[in-house]
């Protein structure tokens, strides 16, 4: 597959995805097709910013949950050792 074919295939796929998105959004909000296409870069930028912000918060949540889980497992192991030690 040559470069032109790749570009053509990628363009067709991107166009199909764009058309699907525009039609779905038009059906959901009733905006015009041109307006949707024009607002697409700003929407994408907004979505990227929001996703980055949510990813940062989710990362913090994940770190906190991981620390809590590790502390819990450590506590459980210590409790198990303290229970098994007198028996041994």
């Amino acid at each position, binding site marked *: 597959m040559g470069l032109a074919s790749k570009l053509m295939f990628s363009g067709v796929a991107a166009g199909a995805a764009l058309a699907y*998105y525009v039609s779905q*959004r038009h059906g959901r*909000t009733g*905006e015009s097709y041109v*307006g949707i296409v*024009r*607002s697409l870069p*700003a*929407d*994408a930028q*907004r*979505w990227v910013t*929001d*996703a980055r*912000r*949510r*990813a940062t*918060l*989710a*990362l913090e*949540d*994940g*770190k*906190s*949950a*991981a*620390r*809590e*889980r*590790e502390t819990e*497992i*450590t506590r459980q*192991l210590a409790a198990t050792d303290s229970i098994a030690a007198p028996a041994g």
Partner: protein
Amino acid sequence: MHSALAVAASSTPSTVLRYAAAFFFVVVAIATAYALVKAAKALERVDNVLADVDQQAVPLMQKAGTTLDGVNANLGNVDQITKDVADITDKIDKMATSVEGAVTTPARKAAAFSAGVQSAFSSFRRRDRGADASEDPWSAPPGADDPAPASSAPSTSGTAAAERTGEAAAGAADEAATADSGAVDDLAGATAVAAGKVSDAAADAAGSET
């Protein structure tokens, strides 16, 4: 006659006593002889028993000594086995400790990592749904980037209102994001607050345009 009788009468008690003493001594002599015969027989039997014991005790003692030597040897073997078992137990203990240290730490890290990934993914998805509930992240706020429709020309007041609306929505989304991640009720409350701020900003924008 009378005198003879008197002599006889006066000498009779002593004669009787003499005969009685003689009889008593004879009886005592017979009993003593019988006892001595019995004692001789008993001593003879004791002598025979001692002779038998003397003959059989030495081999018994030798056998007992041999048995004790064997028991001591077996006890030595048991002692060695006990030491070996103790060594094996120590080695198993060390090996178990090493295995536990080699397995527990990565397992704990893996469990913590999986819990963190799960929490992060669920938090990301929950905030995604919260953002979808408040606003569509792909849809611009009214009049933000969309050029003004043909009916109304673009105005600076509309742009400012849109910016205020966007800021209010972002602030509300931040509130929703910083709310308690585990409580759906809090998330719904923050979403309601966000919707209220959006509506307030829209009302301000409409008022400024008029």
